[in-house]
């Protein structure tokens, strides 16, 4: 359109892109689902983050689902071991990242995903340590995470989680 005061971007024109922060920090909750992932998540938690917080679901591994006294609330603890309300944490999250090691069968994934589903919070799952595990072990973990996430990443390198969180401005 001749009436427009700018044309398609050129190298020269690109300088005029307005410079300002175009997003607010997003709350990312990172949850370890097994001991090996917990070690990785603990290390990550040492870093500088905008609005990421780190949890583990380990304490509740093997806990029965449903039945008397069952609640979706427990299932999460912070890295110091304090029990956290899963529903509260998910409600205040923009993204929930679950971390599992290849070869494990993370029971908590289903509960966490259910909580995310009711709150319409996006979930991502990362499987680490795939390099060292057999196809069978990997499939086991995959099968227990796949139904619950819209994005699943199988990473050969633990560093990837950190890279991903930085890329997502966590």
């Amino acid at each position, binding site marked *: 359109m001749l009436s427009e005061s700018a044309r398609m971007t050129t190298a020269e024109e690109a300088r005029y892109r307005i410079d300002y922060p175009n997003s607010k920090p997003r709350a990312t909750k990172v949850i370890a689902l097994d001991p090996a992932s917990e070690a990785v998540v603990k290390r990550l938690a040492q870093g500088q983050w905008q609005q990421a917080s780190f949890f583990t679901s380990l304490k509740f591994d093997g806990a029965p689902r449903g039945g008397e006294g069952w609640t979706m609330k427990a299932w999460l603890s912070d890295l110091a071991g304090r029990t956290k309300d899963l529903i509260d944490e998910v409600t205040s999250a923009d993204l929930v990242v679950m971390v599992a090691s290849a070869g494990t069968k993370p029971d908590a994934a289903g509960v966490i995903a259910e909580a995310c589903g009711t709150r319409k919070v996006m979930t991502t799952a990362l499987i680490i340590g795939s390099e060292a595990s057999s196809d069978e072990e990997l499939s086991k973990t995959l099968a227990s995470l796949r139904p619950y996430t819209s994005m699943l*990443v199988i990473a050969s390198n633990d560093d990837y989680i950190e890279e991903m969180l930085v890329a997502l401005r966590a």
Partner: protein
Amino acid sequence: MLRKEQNDLLTQTGPATPFGQMFRCYWVPALLAEELPENECPPVRVKLFSERLLAFRDTDGKYGLIDEFCAHRGVSLWFGRNEESGLRCPYHGWKYDVTGQCIDVPSEAAESGFCKKIKLTSYPLVKIGPVLWTYMGPPDKQPPLPEWEFSLVPPEQCFISKRLQESNWLQAMEGGIDSSHVSFLHRGDLGSDPLFKGAKGNKYNLSDMKPHFEVVEQPGGLYIGARRNAENGNYYWRITPWVMPNFTMIPPRGDHPMHGHFWVPIDDHNCWAWTYDFHPTRALTKDERAAMQAGQGLHCKYVAGSYRPLANKDNDYLMDRAAQKAGKTYSGIAGFAIQDSSLQESMGPVCDRTKENLVSTDNGIIMARHRMLRALKTFTDKGTLPPGVDPEHHKIRSVSIVLPPDQAFKDGARDALTRKLGKAQTTV
């Protein structure tokens, strides 16, 4: 988001840059064989990785890719006379062979041997199928020739084109592994383009607009899998391999030819977007070839006598607001290729990744950057050659397949993901 230093690293590919040095370890498509159609034909100016070069084909059919400028006083050898096994500078008659070696300096006595002391930089230029490939890295690290399936099938089974893209190579490549844009930007064309329509898989695509993704590392790069619901609780998978740094292959649709891209930096603000189409087991039909030549599928129409798309930034890509409004095209731009180039060029010559807000479905892109930065570090620190250099990494295929719900696609489709020359592809 990338930090500025990381963005600079991955987007700068000139001779003295770290990524430029790593990128030079790969064979890359330099030009189409049709650009040098016969012996002693006119030479062609080629800029790659911010180096100005000249490609020519001598009297004996040998190909050369040499420094564009005469060592005497810097004249462009594009004006040269291609005669008697060499290219002669029209200014004072210095002559060079395809290796850049000066073979005649008329002002000096031949016996003086002066011309032996003059040599222009040159790179190998090798014809494989319809493409002339070059390798611009250190000669002692030159890997074996590439073994991509499209370049090894008989000529009647393959069609390849290139188009100028006026943007940095990285944003073009990232568009190729950005699986979540297809359901938006290209949605109008799946059902109508002659090179896509009619495949059973299209039904799954259109009935499930919210695919789930899996990103899996493989030795040469990544597999990016998108799954949608199929019958009986099974999943319809579309698996795109990305081989480092600049190759992808799009999952097939029915018995249509398979296709994919290469992106090659011209300089930091321009790249070549290469598009290949091939069928593993049969000749392309007359209609398929005609459609490709007419710019359908992933190809495009050109400004006459060039490889610049007819729809380009100077004419706003022939934006059609009525088609946009009517939903005939999602963005108002016609054709897969220009839908991509228009948006990728609109990011500016080098996309400022410090300003982006990626989401979890961008994990394919995040992982690709991570793999390249990781490879760059070991390349710079230890000289380790990056993934994708080894021709073993070229022996892959894209796949579309229906699998049971709990199967890892890397296992379920292991065989299908492996290149098998002369054998049919796995496709739905």
